């Protein structure tokens, strides 16, 4: 038997569910285990980095809250796109679909900005004797960063600018953070490509229609899933990373 068409709401299958929808749910179950393993790795290594920086040295909760908000709103516009399509409004579908994709791209833009920001991060440390900032960071700085600080201060300036960035190679936090959020970003990227494909495909007569709503339904399921994963990552990585007591 073949993949059934999605022209009718009732499917000619044992359960009445569409094959492709069932497949999507199985895939999402599998993807849950994928992210669970990455998040578990992150948690196992939380606080185990030999050198800095730590989450508290890099994260800006207000900035990431904005991108999180944008991603959550994209889920809403995804719902509106699907609702418009099932009501037969192709125009509404296109508007909401494009805005969903744009919000997804905005989120990705924030992520690129944030990744770059982390790699070029600098810290200002006063050159006075027993500078509190230096004492705070002493255990996190590498020997190269410490000698850099001392070299700068030897020139008689008041405040040294020490390179304190993070790449995936810097420490365990960098490794686990970039790989976890990077794979989430890759999921979002795939989602954006999928959404844009549907958007452009909708200009072909009859290619996207209320009868063929399942094509959009599947993309929406995936999109919402990626969103939910981000809520977990934002909580576990960002909020728990910055606020004491978690």
């Amino acid at each position, binding site marked *: 038997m073949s993949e059934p068409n999605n022209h009718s709401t009732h499917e000619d299958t044992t359960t009445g569910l569409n094959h492709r929808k069932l497949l999507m749910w199985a895939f999402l179950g599998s993807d849950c285990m994928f992210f669970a393993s990455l998040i578990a790795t992150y948690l196992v290594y939380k606080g185990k980095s030999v050198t800095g920086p730590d989450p508290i040295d890099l994260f800006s909760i207000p900035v990431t809250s904005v991108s999180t908000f944008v991603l959550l709103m994209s889920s809403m516009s995804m719902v509106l796109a699907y609702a418009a399509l099932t009501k037969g409004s192709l125009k509404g579908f296109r508007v909401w679909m494009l805005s969903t994709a744009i919000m997804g791209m905005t989120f990705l833009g924030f992520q690129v900005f944030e990744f770059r920001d982390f790699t070029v991060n600098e810290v200002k440390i006063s050159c006075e004797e027993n500078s509190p900032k230096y004492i705070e960071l002493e255990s996190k700085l590498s020997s190269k960063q410490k000698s850099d600080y001392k070299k700068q201060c030897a020139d008689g300036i008041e405040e040294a600018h020490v390179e304190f960035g993070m790449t995936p190679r810097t420490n365990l936090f960098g490794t686990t953070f970039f*790989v976890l959020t990077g794979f989430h970003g890759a999921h979002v990227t795939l989602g954006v490509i999928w959404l844009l494909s549907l958007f452009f495909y909708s200009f072909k007569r009859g290619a996207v229609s209320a009868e063929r709503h399942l094509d959009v339904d599947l993309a929406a399921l995936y999109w919402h899933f990626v969103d939910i994963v981000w809520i977990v990552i934002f909580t576990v990585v960002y909020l728990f990373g910055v606020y004491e007591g978690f």
Partner: protein
Amino acid sequence: MTSFPLQISRPIHPTGIWNWITTIDHKKIGILYGVSAFILFIIGGIEAMLMRAQLASSNLKIIDPELYNQLFTMHGTTMIFLAIMPMGAAFFNYLIPLQIGARDVAFPRLNAFSYWTFLAGAIILNASWFLGGAPNAGWFGYAPITGKAYNVGHGIDFWIISLQVLGIASLAAAFNFIVTIINMRAPGMTFSRLPVFTWMSFITAILLVLAFPVITVALIELQFDRFYGTNFFITSAGGNPILWQHLFWVFGHPEVYILILPAMGIVSEILPTFSKKPLFGYPVVILSGIIIGFMGWMVWSHHMFTVGLGPVANSVFALTTMAIAIPTGVKIFNWLGTLWKGSLTLNTPMLYAIGFILTFTIGGISGVMHSQAASDAQQQDTYFIVAHIHYVLFGGSLIAILGGIYYWFPKFTGRMYDEKMGKLGFYAFFIAMQITFFPMHFTGLNGMPRRIYTYGSEYGWDFWNLISTIGVLLLAISMVIFIYNIVSSWIGGEKASGDPWDARTLEWSISSPPPEYNFAVIPTIEYRDDWWEKKMLGKTSEEITSDDVHLPQPSYWPFIASLGLLIAGFGIILSIPVAILGASITMIGVYAWSFEPVNDPH
């Protein structure tokens, strides 16, 4: 229908090799899986024979230590991922649609993609022999020995990438079978009437879907450490090699059940047929399978008893490991109950099935011995473990698969095998297996570590090692008999009827080999063992043929998408532009595939 620019004319009625490359018929894909996996099984067997030759006596110098490391790594990886799993997949493909009364799987093109991707993974792994040396860190690749600092060649890279590609193949297949079993059952084929083999395949597919992502992540972490200098398993940066062990075995233990559950399903089909009795305690057998699948997630740390996780962790995992022996034991008694007072036909498949019960029980008993954490500390990494794993995988999974090949041979090929030669092959195989693997219990308890390339004569391991090596030679002879029987019968065997065994399940209600569309009319199921019950009640009707069944048409795209993965796999290791080329081919394949209608409109 489609505006996709790469639309090329569809392979409507291909012949010869293109027929096989573009086929999306689950039966042909099943045969492709089975034949490829069997060839890889022979390669894995040759690797084992080379190792046994080196170990035949103390202080031999047939193989140098580096090659020996590559041999045991490739033997383990090949047998598990390239032989037993895909042989299981061969049965899933061929039998599940037939057993549930369907005309194909839910996603026929995805099914073709699974097969070709599996083949790509197999090629990538075995190409390592010719591109700088095979992987050499054991089939579970413990960090940090797999790290760049200790393992500079490309061997581990090939291992990582091939397992990732094989993971894609397994996941795609598992999604497909889950949907097929849930959604394509014939009317009346409820879950309480589902044949046991299909039930066990269903549990296996669920385990695959949940377990494979875990090793995918472990492999990604290792790959990033090796390729991009991250710190996951770098101890100087605080990385913890134990994380690899946890991730690997969280996958690895469910994997053990992925290997054995289909075998249990096969045996549960053979025994009732040749006992002329329904399976004893069908619901209990199913429930035990579900419990095994569930509890398989709670025992992974018994592979790590000597790591030093502490007495609490060791005790908990010792208890769960003992507990998982219960549903397994329940199944053994159900099989014995099936045989009890049955009218037994001791032909070749039945002999293999009974052989399975015997050897799998021995393997299960040594398994319970390892569940005692204290005693396991003595057995860890000795030949006792090697004996155990071969009793459950070789004497468990493989023996059932060979029995299954004989049992369904008439259905697969439309011909009968040679019964006399089959029995001879079985006895040779069974005796050779005991001669090969039983002595490993003794060498193991005498302290012989696994994975050493040679040993001194002063340890007193010579005698039993020589016996094992002789056993392997006999095993090779028994496999020659098996292959000769299969090949000669396939070519010139007697024609088989649709139901040569007077069997019970739906696949026997149609001709052998089945027509391309399987069922001219989708059957309505009224009983468990529906075909048998209807035969008893005289309710069977003449099989009708049809030339008016619409089947999904063949397609080039699954093959092309997999070909892209093959190229990308080599590219990631050897050259980034090639990787990009491969990924682009896959993208084109997937896009063209998703815009290609299942059937061209006429």
